[in-house]
């Protein structure tokens, strides 16, 4: 007995062709998704090749164009810091770095120091809140003691950065505190992992595997 396909016309298609149709639909949908969301923001981890170039804050202030987009490491005192979350619930950590220590506790939570000429601002964001909060706390202690840190990152790479059109100069990737170099991107992950409920993640993972198997079979 012939069992007719519930959708007219489809019974005439060979199995292989049906599989290709589904694949093409997924491609179209994927493309649509990329088009649709290309404007939405997310946190970024910059990857720039090459070694870190040691520079001073004065170098970065005076020869901005030379170091733009390059990996640099700068030896500096912490002037002040801000820590918070952005609208994507990613943690954002901003530092003002200068050539002189800043020991006034009342200025510790700010980024604007108009009386200090030579300074830069560095930023790091991500969902690796444990690493970022640990770095933030350690840097607070370093500032209180008037000690230096080494900030590693890409200079003038992110413009604009969050709500700042300009003024955030260094995208951090590592930081050296008391001789310990910490990768500030460690354990950072995408928004998907952050936002997706556990059950949905498993379902998605399962569906992906299943599709893979089906795709191979077809």
């Amino acid at each position, binding site marked *: 007995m012939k069992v007719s396909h519930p*959708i*007219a*016309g*489809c019974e*005439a*298609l060979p199995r292989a*062709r049906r599989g*290709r*149709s*589904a694949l*093409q*639909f997924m491609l*179209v*949908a*994927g493309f*649509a*998704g*990329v*088009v*649709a*969301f*290309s*404007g*939405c*923001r*997310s946190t970024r981890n910059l990857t720039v090749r090459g070694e870190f170039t040691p520079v001073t804050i004065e170098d970065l202030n005076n020869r901005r164009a030379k170091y733009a987009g390059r990996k640099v490491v700068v030896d500096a005192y912490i002037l002040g810091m801000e820590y918070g979350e*952005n*609208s*994507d619930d990613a943690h954002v950590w901003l530092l003002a770095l200068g050539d002189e220590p800043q020991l*006034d506790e009342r200025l510790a939570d*700010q*980024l*604007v*120091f*108009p*009386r200090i000429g030579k300074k830069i*601002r560095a930023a790091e964001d991500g969902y690796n809140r444990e690493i970022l909060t640990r770095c933030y706390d350690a840097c607070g202690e370093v500032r209180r003691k008037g000690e230096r840190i080494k900030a590693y990152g890409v200079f003038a790479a992110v*413009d*604009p950065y*969050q*709500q*700042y*059109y*300009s*003024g*955030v100069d260094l995208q951090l990737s590592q930081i050296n505190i008391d001789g310990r170099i910490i990768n500030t991107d460690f354990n950072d992950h*995408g*928004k*998907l992992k952050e*936002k*997706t409920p556990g059950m949905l993640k498993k379902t*998605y993972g399962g569906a992906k595997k299943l599709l893979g198997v089906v795709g191979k079979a077809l």
Partner: protein
Amino acid sequence: MVAIRIQAHKMRPRWQNSISPPMPVRTLVPAVLLAAVIMASGCRHARVAVVIPAADTAPQTRKIRSAAVDHTVDSIIANPTPYLNRDVTVSGIVRNVETEKHAKGLTVLTMEVKDVSSLNVEIDADENRPQLLFADHLRSTADHLRTAVTDYQMVPVDVEAFEQLSYSLRIAGSKVSALSHYFRAQDMMNTGDAVEQVAKGYFEFGEAFATIAEIGKETPATIELEKSVIEDDVVTTVEETKAFQDNMISAASELLRIAELLIDQRRQLSSAEVLFEYRSITRNIGYTLRSVGDILEADAWAFRKTRNRDAEKDYREISRAFRLLGEGITNINGGFRDLGEKLAARYEPGVMRDDSFPTLKCAYIGYNKDILRDCAAKVDQLGGKDPIIIHGRLHKGNLREQVDLLWLNMHSVTLDGLTINLAYDDETSTRKNLQSFYGWAKDIED
């Protein structure tokens, strides 16, 4: 029905048949594409202010980054017509910045900006105000106490002088305590509490001097003892000297002068006609004195161990005196520091301002209250002493309840090289939620 469908299928070209999806899928593809276009157009839009014509709200990003300051507040206010409904970049001094709830979900950030030239006049006004030298006197007191402690020797002191000073310090304490109520009576409760702390310190100092005088009465002139004093992690051997007495008397005299000055200047302090520098006042000397007190207490126990009851009694008393001195100077210094902070918080940055300079009102209304509050906080951190650059469009019209007002619709603010985009994240919660959902979906596709 079925026959028609089959017929339609047969009429299609061969290639089309091969990719023809089932009916629901065929309807889904254009729907997804349509949704994509809608969403793409919805992402990262500029804000739409409720009081501004839609045409004025175009994104300004690229222009802002290279914008140089091209106008002054005074020139715009003097002749606004050429600038109306045009983008301007203006530098000025912020005299007042605040955020408040505007309507459902909307927050308004407002600034009152004066011309940069007002800065010199107003700062001069601040600098011309008399400065009270509490910090200098307290530093001098601390120096005397530190020297006295370093040279401390249980030698006879001028009992009469110490007794008289103990009474004077207690009198000063009572007067300063009265002053605390004077401030409280003017609804300056925090200031009153700070002054009360100073008064407590004077009483403790007075008691310490009385204790030293009492010990002086009983201590034979021949006792010579060498003690070690821990100060700044350095162990110093103390040599016999009378510097202790001289420095203690000098310290008490300085404190009496400070109390007199505080009481004399009460009206000027309460109305901010005078200033005093308080940031350099620390409590460190208090800890030094308490450290000495504890070491003397240890010595007292050591004498107890050797059954030397007389020496033990003397050392226990002098230990108490040093602890009182430590607590007293901690309270005095801490009280003055708090007093300075409270008075500064009460009067900065709005005191002694020159009203002859006209003010330009600047505003931004948006759903992004976190960004606006953050901007207001950063502007506030400048304390009205450094210029900022404001980018925006000049309007003459209504701003909230104010009618026919010349005002600048800000779209970004630059302070200390940091340019804040006020339109960032300015979207309704519905749009944010949708974007959040689509962003999540995008990550799945990725």
